[in-house]
């Protein structure tokens, strides 16, 4: 009897202890230290910093975001992820996700992304860009394709219809270029980089039928690449000052300050163009898909879990929770309320009535139309940044006139590509 009582008491004590531990475990904070994030400046991330307390309440720790501009962020994250691993979360993009994933610098996101945050709600195109080798690696912060953004008033005054083909675009840009009146036909990107000048050049390359590789054999040294480069250089003659060594900031800045008639750029520009806080051309802007046969440059940027700084499963879960929270429907709704067009990625938000009320039916239609011609223009391979950046330097030399031999530049790139292939 005594032993029965003892056993019962011990059992009760065990159950009590177990239930208390389970309860304690359920309430245990997911994060034990602040989450360190390396990113590039985004309005959405700045807005996120206003809700630090919310994340602290959710996870038990805060977060710290270090910002570097796009090229610096790429260089720094590559150096950090491959050596010391100071950051729990990296901002990655379509151009370097293959390199980061194949090098083991980031962890597959799906394993640590809480199901309740509904990853499937992200725009399917962006999910595709975030996927490499059959696994999802980042949750999108921005993404999309290209839109042709043009000044309706300037085109009307010149009696020109918005161009529908590439040939029309080339002809219209020359007609609209009037530097004496402070109006430039177009704004392109001249600064080196796979995500800079090469990014804007690639639609021309693809439009003329170019392709990067045929199996393991470089195939880009072709008439298509020569013609694409010639067209790019021709258009650059009418590109706004400062863009020859500039990138996204310079070309969109020139358009938003009212100096450019037409440009084909990534979709976030359209949101900036209708926002009085960033644009001096509100109400004068039209949107259409890129002139045929230019494909849009499909892209996506987002947050991924670093492996070096997150050695154990618990810290990976913490990083995963941060990414899920940062890209959640609630936070995306806050971005919509703040009119941060370029920071919207979820279908539930993009198809909402509130979105249509803010941005109008025209832009919605243009976005839907451009989705049909959006494509992945770059070489989806870990060696892409290496090859793309090398072409970026040669292209910058061509744009700024420090070299003139297009074919010589392509030959040089092909020799470099052969080396890259041999190293695989």
């Amino acid at each position: 009897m005594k032993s029965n009582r003892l056993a019962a008491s011990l059992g009760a004590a065990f159950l009590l202890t177990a239930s208390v531990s389970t309860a304690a475990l359920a309430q245990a904070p997911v994060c034990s230290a602040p989450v360190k994030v390396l990113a590039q400046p985004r309005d959405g991330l700045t807005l996120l910093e206003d809700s630090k307390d919310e994340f602290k309440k959710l996870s038990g720790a805060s977060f710290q975001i270090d910002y570097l501009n796009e090229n610096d962020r790429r260089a720094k994250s590559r150096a950090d992820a491959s050596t010391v691993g100071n950051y729990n979360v990296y901002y990655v993009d379509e151009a370097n996700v293959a390199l980061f994933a194949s090098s083991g610098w980031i962890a597959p996101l799906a394993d640590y992304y809480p199901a309740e945050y509904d990853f499937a709600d992200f725009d399917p195109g962006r999910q595709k860009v975030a996927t490499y080798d059959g696994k999802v690696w980042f949750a999108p912060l921005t993404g999309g394709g290209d839109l042709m953004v043009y000044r309706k008033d300037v085109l009307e005054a010149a009696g020109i219809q918005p161009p529908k083909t590439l040939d029309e675009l080339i002809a219209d840009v020359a007609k609209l270029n009037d530097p004496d009146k402070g109006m430039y036909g177009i704004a392109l990107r001249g600064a080196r980089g796979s995500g800079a000048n090469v990014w804007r050049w690639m639609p021309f390359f693809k439009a003329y039928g170019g392709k990067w590789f045929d199996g393991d054999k470089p195939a880009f040294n072709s008439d298509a690449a020569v013609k694409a480069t010639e067209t790019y250089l021709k258009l650059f003659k009418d590109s706004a000052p400062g863009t020859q060594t500039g990138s996204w900031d310079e070309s969109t800045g020139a358009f938003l300050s009212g100096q450019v008639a037409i440009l084909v750029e990534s979709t976030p520009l359209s949101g900036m163009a209708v926002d009085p806080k960033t644009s001096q051309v509100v109400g004068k802007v039209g949107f259409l898909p890129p002139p045929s046969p230019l494909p849009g440059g499909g892209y996506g940027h987002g947050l991924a879990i670093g492996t070096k700084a997150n050695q154990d499963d618990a810290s990976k879960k913490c990083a995963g929770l941060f990414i899920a929270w940062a890209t959640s429907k609630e936070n995306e709704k806050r971005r919509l309320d703040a009119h941060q067009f370029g920071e919207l990625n979820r279908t539930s938000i993009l198809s909402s009535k509130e979105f249509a009320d803010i941005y109008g039916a025209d832009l919605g239609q243009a976005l839907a139309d451009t989705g049909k011609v959006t494509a992945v223009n770059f070489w989806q391979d870990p060696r892409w940044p290496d090859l793309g950046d090398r072409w970026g330097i040669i292209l910058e030399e061509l744009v700024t006139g420090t070299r003139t031999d297009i074919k010589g530049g392509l030959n040089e790139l092909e020799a470099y590509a052969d080396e890259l292939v041999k190293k695989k």
Partner: protein
Amino acid sequence: MRRRSSLPVTFLVPTLAILLVLSMVPTLYAIVIALQNRELSTPSYSWVWFSNFADLFLDRRFLNAVWVSVKWEIVTVVATMVVAIGLGVLMFEVASPRLRNVYCLLFIIPVLLPRVSAAFVWKFAYHPLYGIATYPYRLVTGGLIFDPLSKASTALFAVASVDVWQWGLFFAVIVLKYLETLPPQPIEAARLDHAKRWQIHAYVTLPMLKAPLISLMFVKMIESLRSFDLIYVMTRGGPGVATETLDMYAFSQGFIESGKVSYASAMAVLMMIATVITFTMLWKRVQA
């Protein structure tokens, strides 16, 4: 006696040991890496010995970077010294002691600015449409566009002018202070001999300051070798490769483009050897 002779050793050995570790460990590590084929994207590597060095001499960008570095060194050092001596002498000759102090304060401000901040400020100043530095050109030509950072012929000089703005003005203050510490007798003697002002400086004061001016020049030569931050912010080595110095190209190969850390280390090692040889030769020549 014995206690006296051991004191310098007691103080010097730990200091030199720390210095040796701090300077030799990274140097030796750089040499070791330069003999391998390490890349950031893969943990595996092998010994390739002098292959990286051989490749460098076939690399057009490396050869261009050597030439750009030489140009950069000459332009910035010569221009800095000319500005420093010119302004220093001018202040000494025409400004009252109180005004000199005001100038000194103003001339020190640029060098106190972090290099990256100075680079950003001037990058915007050189903007072809809004820049204050390009405004006079637009005004004179009736609105023509001049974009100094996107032209190969002007980009290096545009960036070098920022370096000279920071260091030339600072060195002018030092030159003024040197001039103020000179004994007045030789200058007065020259005046009694009816020497003109420029002759006094060309034949009396500046020759008297030869040693400190050479030291200043050496400081600037070393400083000019570390111009990476300025060039990185203002041009990233562009347009094309027109301002790509050796340190810029090494960083580019190591961390921006291809992650070839061994190739970048080989460049750093060659740069170190070239610097040591050049500076030793110059130092010996100056001392002779």
